[in-house]
């Protein structure tokens, strides 16, 4: 039994709680337990808040890490944004004693201290390292054969590669391996590692620019005859799911590509229903994908 402190962030608990509920259950299935971090806040979003004020971004991120450290466990996040902020904050604070003292001076006013004792991990690392592809493969009881999945890693998990250390950011493998372990087929598509468009405050300031990124990716996914997008980031997830509704409104182009967080795909392979997985709360129905599966089930 492995235990992690779960850092929720914003979009997972406040927009896609189905991911929170199903990931917790699926991790439990593989003997990984999550401990709550009480009183955490926004991570805060790496490209957005650090663009406004680096000091404030770092202090809030350091508080979140400090709260996680109080549980005595390593910290996991389900969102690349949270992963990016907490990882970078930890990296900066560990590498600069003066900065760490300054930030801890601020945190001491609210009874916290950044120590640097907890590792920051993305939940996909728990699946690839702690659980492992083989165990995922063995646990699958529902065939996902025939599902053409287009993976989207998201930027802040892979990059900067010198800090995140997940191998090549140009040809990543981690998520594709998990997808293939579920029994689905990972299908390559043009500009697979391109950004979804969500980050850096562009979504709030220039929604049409953001959605044009998303539209380009969706067009490429359609060209590759993808049945669904499989992502590993709450922000990208929102971008692709809600973004399709917004694209229809702004550009008049209609897509109906189901968007799955990778644990939802694993959950499907474990025979979990779409309600249980939170799929029926998405803006884009997963029905075409489920129909394809039900039609093809052996």
């Amino acid at each position, binding site marked *: 039994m492995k235990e992690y402190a779960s850092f*929720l962030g*914003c979009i997972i*608990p*406040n*927009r896609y*709680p*189905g991911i*929170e*509920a199903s990931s917790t259950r699926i991790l439990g299935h593989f003997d990984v337990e999550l401990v*709550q971090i*009480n*009183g*955490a*806040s*926004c991570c*805060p*979003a*790496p*490209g*957005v*808040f650090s*663009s*406004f*004020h*680096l000091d*404030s971004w*770092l*202090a*809030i991120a350091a*508080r979140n890490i400090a709260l996680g450290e109080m549980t005595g466990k390593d910290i996991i996040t389900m969102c690349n944004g949270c992963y990016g902020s907490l990882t970078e904050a930890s990296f*900066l604070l560990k590498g600069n004693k003066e*900065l760490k003292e300054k930030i801890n001076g*601020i*945190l001491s*006013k*609210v*009874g*916290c201290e950044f120590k640097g004792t907890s590792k920051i991990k993305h939940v996909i690392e728990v699946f690839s390292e702690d659980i492992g592809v083989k165990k995922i493969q063995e646990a699958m009881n529902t065939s996902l054969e025939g599902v053409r999945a287009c993976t989207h890693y998201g*930027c802040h998990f892979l*990059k*900067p*590669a010198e800090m995140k250390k997940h191998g090549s*950011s*140009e040809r990543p493998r981690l998520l594709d391996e998990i997808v293939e372990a579920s029994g689905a087929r990972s299908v390559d598509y043009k500009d697979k*590692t*391109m*950004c979804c468009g969500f*980050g*850096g*405050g*562009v979504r*709030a300031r*220039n929604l049409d*620019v*953001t959605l*044009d*990124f998303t539209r*380009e990716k969706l067009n490429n996914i359609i060209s590759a005859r993808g049945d669904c997008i499989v992502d590993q980031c709450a922000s990208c997830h929102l971008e692709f799911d809600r973004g399709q509704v917004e694209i229809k409104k702004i550009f008049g182009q209609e897509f109906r590509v189901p968007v799955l967080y990778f644990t939802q795909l694993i959950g499907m392979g474990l025979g979990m229903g779409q309600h249980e997985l*939170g799929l029926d*709360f998405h803006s884009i129905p997963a029905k075409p994908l489920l129909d394809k599966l039900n039609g093809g089930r052996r």
Partner: protein
Amino acid sequence: MPANITRINELNSSFFKDFIEIGKKIFSEDMLHSVESCVQCGCCTGSCPSSRRTAFRTRKLFREMLLGFRDSVLEGDDLWLCTTCYTCYERCPRGVKTTDIIRVLRNMAVSQGHMAEAHRMTASYVLRTGHGVPVSEEVQKLREELGLSSLPPTTHSYPEALRAVQEILKLTGFDRIVGFDWKTMELRGRK
């Protein structure tokens, strides 16, 4: 955009010095000085998914910055069209820490009052609730349906935790930068 002819006195020679002063509070000086290695090869712009659809040109931004076009860099919209995807950061053959440099430039822009209303709004959510994306009534119902607590165990459930976040943001001066009024819990001078 600078005109074809630029008079030397229009250039701001302290721009780069200010950039280093502000950036070094968080980042190493080596990292900040990396931009001086830029040879204008354009790998950044060629890799940039934003430049495919906007006028944003990373290469141009760095050239202007190094030449001292302070106003053009800090007051323009282009600076805000980077999604911080780090593709150029990974690919820069000269090791320029592109995305970090852009974030420091954005901090400089914000400190001079160039902050979009939409961004002030985003910032105000964190000051008010601790979340950049706060929960809604609809999602609270959804959470209950899924067997989760109606409010997540975050600042949404712990008022003292929210106060801690707000205290930190007062200490760092974030409230002043954003123009947040604690009495009304709203942004000052909303247009």
